[in-house]
């Protein structure tokens, strides 16, 4: 026997709606949005810091070119948010001699500096630094090597070693003779 509807559903019973579906969809949609928001925030954060690394590298190279030793704590951190020297992974300076005229007194050195912000994938496992602690997870089907570009950014700049722009008399004579040779002037 078919029961009357009043029996199956009391008068207080609401008619069936899509409320549950909306809730479920909202959970999925909002989670997606939150994930995207976090991802975009993190990427823009790193993108911003990537810009700052190249600015910091410029300062770093300038310091090296002027005979100073740039460090994250001493001079480079100011280029980042709130003097963020904790997340400056590396300030590296090397001196390159691209082309030497052969005179030992007059080395055309170029200070080539790079600044890396963030941390390596291996360091990520033990990281407690925000926001990198958020990246301490294993993404399915994503090899760790691919994380590198997400966990650190770097910038690079070169600057001439312009400490020495004067010469002693003997040095001057040596280089002058060499310049004469290079110039190929016959007299």
């Amino acid at each position, binding site marked *: 026997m078919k029961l009357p509807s009043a029996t199956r559903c009391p008068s207080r019973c609401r008619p069936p709606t899509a409320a549950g579906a909306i809730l479920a969809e909202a959970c999925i949609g909002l989670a997606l949005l939150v994930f995207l928001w976090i991802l975009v925030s993190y990427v823009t954060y790193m993108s911003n810091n990537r810009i700052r690394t190249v600015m910091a*590298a410029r300062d770093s190279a300038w310091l090296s070119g002027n005979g100073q030793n740039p460090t994250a704590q001493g001079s480079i951190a100011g280029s980042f948010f709130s003097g963020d020297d904790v997340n400056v992974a590396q300030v590296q300076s090397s001196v390159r001699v*691209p082309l030497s005229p052969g005179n030992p007194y*007059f080395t055309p050195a*170029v200070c080539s500096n790079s600044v890396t912000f963030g941390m390596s994938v291996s360091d990520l496992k033990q990281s407690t630094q925000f926001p990198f602690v958020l990246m301490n997870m294993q993404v399915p089907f994503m090899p760790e090597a691919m994380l590198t570009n997400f966990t650190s950014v770097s910038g690079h700049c070169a600057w001439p070693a*312009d400490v020495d722009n004067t010469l002693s008399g003997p040095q001057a004579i040596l280089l*002058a003779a060499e310049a004469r040779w290079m110039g190929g002037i016959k*007299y």
Partner: protein
Amino acid sequence: MKLFAILESRIRRLRDDQNGSVLLLSGIMAFMVAILGVFAVDTGQAIYNRIVAQNAADAAAETAALWQARGLNLVQQLNNFHYVFNVTLFGVEAGQLATCLSTPQTEANEHAACSIGALLSGGASCPPAIRAMTHACRECTKAGPNNDYQKSVAQQILAMQQSMTYTFPLLTLTYASQAAQQSGADDLSIVVPQYASKIGSQIGLSFPSLPAVNVFAFPINPASVSLNVQQVDGKYFPWRWSLVNLPSDDTRADEMVAKVAALVAWETGRIFCSTDPFQLGQFIGQFGGHDTPDDWGWRDKYYQGHPGYMTWAAGKTNQTELAGLGLLRWVNGGAPAAPVHYKFMNQDGLLMYVGTGLDSTSPLMVPPLIAVASSQVEGTGVIGKDGSLFKGFSSLGSLLTGINPVDQPPVDSTPHLISVYGVPFPSIYH
């Protein structure tokens, strides 16, 4: 008809059905957020490249100024060496002339019996007059060879300096380009064609295709890499006796005294040596093949001048930015860069940032991913301290700060770098 009814019914049902609407909206939102994220990252990439280009241009300009400074210092060092050498040799020659002229000429003919062996062994058995005469002959004949020696050294120094005027611009071009390369700049032969039409439309020029050479930075005005020094005559002590192009108001009686002394010594030496039985003067050869006193003195030509400012360009290719972000002016910092005027030595209002090339008062409208930077070498101009004192430079403009190089002992000019100007972005650098 029936099909239409079914379709209408389904559309109506779909319209009233809210299932999946949030997911759809979320998808749209996610897409928009993703687009915004891409634009944010893409803008970051454009700005990143913009800064790299600026860094490269700055490094190139600084490197170029550095090598100009080094070249000028080297020229200055040689000027100093030349000057010291001249003064020293002048002292030696003055002593020789004094010895020569102090010899008693009245004893010139007393040279009868005296062997050369006795004379060379000390001349104890020779009459004093003979010794004096022989001594005078020998002293008076040294000026000519000394003058030749001085001239030879001076020519060597001047030749070195001349070669520097060729060599250092090449070094400047090479090292500036390499500094830009190491700072991340791209090859200009690739960068410039991307923007050539944009730049050309500003100044009304069409650029020819560049040769495929690796040049990562280049001066907008290639002539600016010149050391801009020129050979000028010395003016004051020590003298160059044969100098004829003297300013009319320049009175130098001391030079005339020296010249007369040289002539007297010359004639004295000729007399002594002509009566010298051993012909020492002829042996040394003063009177055969050497300059006459008119050409004695000091070939005190020096290099003098000062370089102007340089403006270098370096750039990045617009290859990764979406939607042509690399062509947007706001990436370049918004408003066009204003010309920067700088007071430098005796130059007021020096324009450090070039104009369009046709109008020096308007800023150069460079594409965002091409950066320009100017540099200047600071310090005392090579052998210069007051341009008003050297009349020969009046036609060369105010860049030169020439004076007579030996108005006072020249000092190291020690040029150094003072500034690198670029477009306002990023302002943290400037």
